[in-house]
């Protein structure tokens, strides 16, 4: 395996407490719309950190930037002290071997079985013989409670099971950093509780650092050590432990945590005055 330390662009020493550091990042998919507007966040080693915020506030984009899918417009992202350079393919691929990502809907390969999906990263990145691959895959599937489903096709499993298979695939290579993109979206209460429990348990047993992107406040607060709240303008508006955020008096934090339909985040999309739209004159 390529040593990331030899090829990464180093601008500082690894921080003993922080695995991922995001500093003053600005990003937009095109010049007309800024998604992330000068955001700075840091993620402690071995911790579960949640990024909360409404739909479209840039949470998933932030994960993609950490994974180097897009280059940032301004600012820096460091993983273990090394700047993520999305234009350096060799560095990115070395970096991504240390990451595991759970996509919103699993992103499982539909032409492969459950077993082969979990075996995929092992077969691509290691020279392990098939008996060893089999043992590791069954261990990972056992960790997510799906050893018995190893030989099912992806079309034969439910959405909740698919998320767990994707989790088993994400941890196949024992990554240092696990990123979860909306792991609770579309799950029934039991599957949601299973997913939340797995995220916490896997984090504690593997010693990995977890970044959890979600808008499900209650589930996130049950399992995370620290949380950031992002606004629809792509800014971090609050941060703290779940308890600190729960006790916050900030109207924006309170509206989001309590799920109030109106408040600093308006119910109505910006529009012309009602009278003008309906042609009513005073």
């Amino acid at each position: 395996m390529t040593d990331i330390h030899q090829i990464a662009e180093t601008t500082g020493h690894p921080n003993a407490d922080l695995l991922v550091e995001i500093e003053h990042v600005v990003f937009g998919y095109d010049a007309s719309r800024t998604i992330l507007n000068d955001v700075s966040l840091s993620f402690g080693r071995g911790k579960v950190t949640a990024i909360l915020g409404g739909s479209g506030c840039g949470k998933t984009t932030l994960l993609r930037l950490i994974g180097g899918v897009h280059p940032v417009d301004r600012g820096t992202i460091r993983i273990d002290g090394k700047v993520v350079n999305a234009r350096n393919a060799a560095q990115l691929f070395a970096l991504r071997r240390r990451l595991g990502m759970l996509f919103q809907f699993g992103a499982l390969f539909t032409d492969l079985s459950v077993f082969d999906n979990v075996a995929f990263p092992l077969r691509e990145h290691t020279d392990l013989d098939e008996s060893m691959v089999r043992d590791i895959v069954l261990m990972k599937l056992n960790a997510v409670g799906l050893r018995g489903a190893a030989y099912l096709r992806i079309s034969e499993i439910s959405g909740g099971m698919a998320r767990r298979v994707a989790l088993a695939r994400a941890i196949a290579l024992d990554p240092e950093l696990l990123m979860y993109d909306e792991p609770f979206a579309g799950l029934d209460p039991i599957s949601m509780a299973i997913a939340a429990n797995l995220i916490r348990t896997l984090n504690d047993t593997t010693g990995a650092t977890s970044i959890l992107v979600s808008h499900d406040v209650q589930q996130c607060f049950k399992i995370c050590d620290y949380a950031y709240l992002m606004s629809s303008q792509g800014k971090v508006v609050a941060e703290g432990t779940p308890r600190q955020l729960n006790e916050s008096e900030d109207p924006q934090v309170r509206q989001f945590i309590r799920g109030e339909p109106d408040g600093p985040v308006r119910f109505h999309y910006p529009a012309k005055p009602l009278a003008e739209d309906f042609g009513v004159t005073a």
Partner: protein
Amino acid sequence: MTGLVSWLGQRTLEILRILGHHATFLVELIRACPAALRRPYFVVAQIHAIGNLSLIIIVASGTAVGFVLALQMYYALVTYGAAESLGLIVNLSLTRELGPVVTALLFAGRAGTSLTAEIGLMKAGEQLAAMDMMAVDPMSRVLAPRFLAGVVSMPILAILFSSVGILGAYVVAVLLIGVDSGNFWSIMQSGVDVRRDIGNGIIKSIVFGFICTFVALYQGYEAEATPEGVAHGTTRTVVIASLGILMMDFVLTALMFSTP
């Protein structure tokens, strides 16, 4: 006037951007081929998926074309007392033109659309993004094996199409109409040049396989990640690949058969 110049400028820039994008994609695809060749089992699996599974439509169409060609040619030739040339004309028509062209058009419809839909849906389901995040290059793991399989499968299918077409023509001409069997085969043997006729037909089919597979993969990879985007991508694959095949056929025919 300023508006016209501005419009022309915008269109020109847009065309250049599209061409540049295609060229970049092609370079990336070709650069990924050596990595795909190092794991030939993926290429073989794709040859099975897009080559073997096209066999039925190719064999059925080839036979039907052979039947019709023999009938039509016989009616035309018998008027001039040249019915004995039937075998030669059928063979030249199939190996030089109909084999490569019709096979490529069928290939675009059968395998091309399937490739576009598959890649487009993989993109829509974030499978390609997931692969990328697992430090696996989708270009060499997914696209290049399909590209190589398409380029390899096309000439084999075209040869098969021409072969069953000739057999179909034999059935109609010899068994049904009563053309002399020995004459049917011997004039073919003496009038068909392996390098000039069959060889050029194979070269054509390799070029058409390249066009079809490249267009199908590009349209799938660049399709918008929505059901409409994938639907538009598959339609564009058939239209662009078919037009590309027909235009390239004219160019290749002019180059290959410019002298009698």
